[in-house]
């Protein structure tokens, strides 16, 4: 009987450790944390000409503080723009209606996020309002392409007879 009690204790400890590890994996390695119910939020949309690499779940921040997340990304076939739906935390319910939304990149290789710059209006964004002032993502490849095109043009015009030997 003594032996079987020690055995059961070992089994119980093992199972507990296993579930602790599962709990660790689901809460500590992911961003889910302990919040099984979601905070109250309201939804705001914005249309961008180009969202670059923006993904669902990307943070929406204001002055560097995260105020919400990107909930959905759609496409408006009327004016060929990307429609980004954002969930903003209810605590941040005093964002002026003429605020602008910009897509920035975290670091050189980081993911993209939406930064809101406040406007000066007295009215605030409500559920299902739209942010009309938007700036598209800075697509690095396009920028480099433009730079190279300008560079070539510049070098051609300055020394038309020069350039590379054929």
């Amino acid at each position: 009987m003594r032996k079987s009690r020690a055995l059961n204790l070992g089994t119980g400890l093992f199972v507990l450790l296993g579930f602790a590890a599962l709990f660790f994996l689901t809460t500590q390695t992911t961003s889910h944390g302990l919040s099984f119910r979601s905070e109250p939020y309201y939804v705001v949309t914005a249309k961008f000409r180009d969202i670059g690499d923006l993904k669902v779940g990307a943070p929406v921040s204001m002055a560097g503080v995260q105020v919400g997340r990107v909930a959905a990304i759609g496409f408006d076939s009327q004016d060929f723009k990307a429609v980004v739906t954002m969930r903003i935390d209810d605590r941040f319910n005093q964002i002026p209606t003429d605020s602008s939304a910009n897509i920035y990149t975290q670091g050189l290789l980081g993911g993209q996020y939406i930064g809101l710059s406040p406007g000066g209006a007295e009215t605030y964004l409500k559920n299902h309002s739209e942010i009309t002032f938007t700036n598209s993502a800075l697509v690095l490849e396009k920028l480099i392409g433009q730079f190279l095109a300008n560079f070539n043009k510049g070098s051609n015009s300055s020394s038309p007879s020069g350039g590379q030997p054929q």
Partner: protein
Amino acid sequence: MIGDFLDSLSESVERLGDTIRFLVRILVQVPSAMLRPQLIFDQIYNAGALSLVIIMLSGLFVGMVLGLQGYDLLQRFGSEDALGTAAAIGLVRELGPVVTALLFAGRAGTALASEIGLMRATDQLSAMEMMAVDPVRRVVVPRFLGGVIAMPLLAAIFSMIGIYGAQLIGVQVMHVDAGSFWSQMQASVELRDVNEGIVKSVVFGIACSLIAVYQGYYSEPTAEGVGTATTRTVVTSAVMVLFLDYLITAFFLK
């Protein structure tokens, strides 16, 4: 030559079918085996708690190797802050379940196969049948269930220890910032990744336990037969685990 190949192929298919039939036979007996939980607890202890040391040690070393290799790879792109993400995704989705299953087959699977095989060789199973005790219900099902329950828990422990191993090398030795190690991991690991790992470890647990009890139960009742059963357990389990791993990964990444 071709005839031999066809013969061995049809034999493998036959054994696969036989294993599936054995699984059905086990599953039918599961409810009645639940009535004696003590037998299952004992097997969770045998398959799980006794494998804990090897799992934790291996997890620590696999995690530390991931820390070194991941750091060396990522610093070439100047993104060593992503080490936490790389280590966590690698461990939770792939290395945790697969390496645990391979170790589980080597540590617990062989023990199961040789134990049941020896019972077969020493006529203990026939003796049970003689006493109207179903050996599948009394011997096989508790061992199978013990393995199926222990395996996902072992895989979770392996992944957790592995992440701390990677953290040990990355943060303490290579001086990756601890804050970005954890926050980048939490930002980019999704619940989907953890689910994939859990699904894999459950499936591997079923496969490894089933192969072990099948090989033991149907082993030749000789000393050599027990040895063959043990070898086959490890080889078949390893191949099945890697094959199923590909299937499940392809399914999750579809």
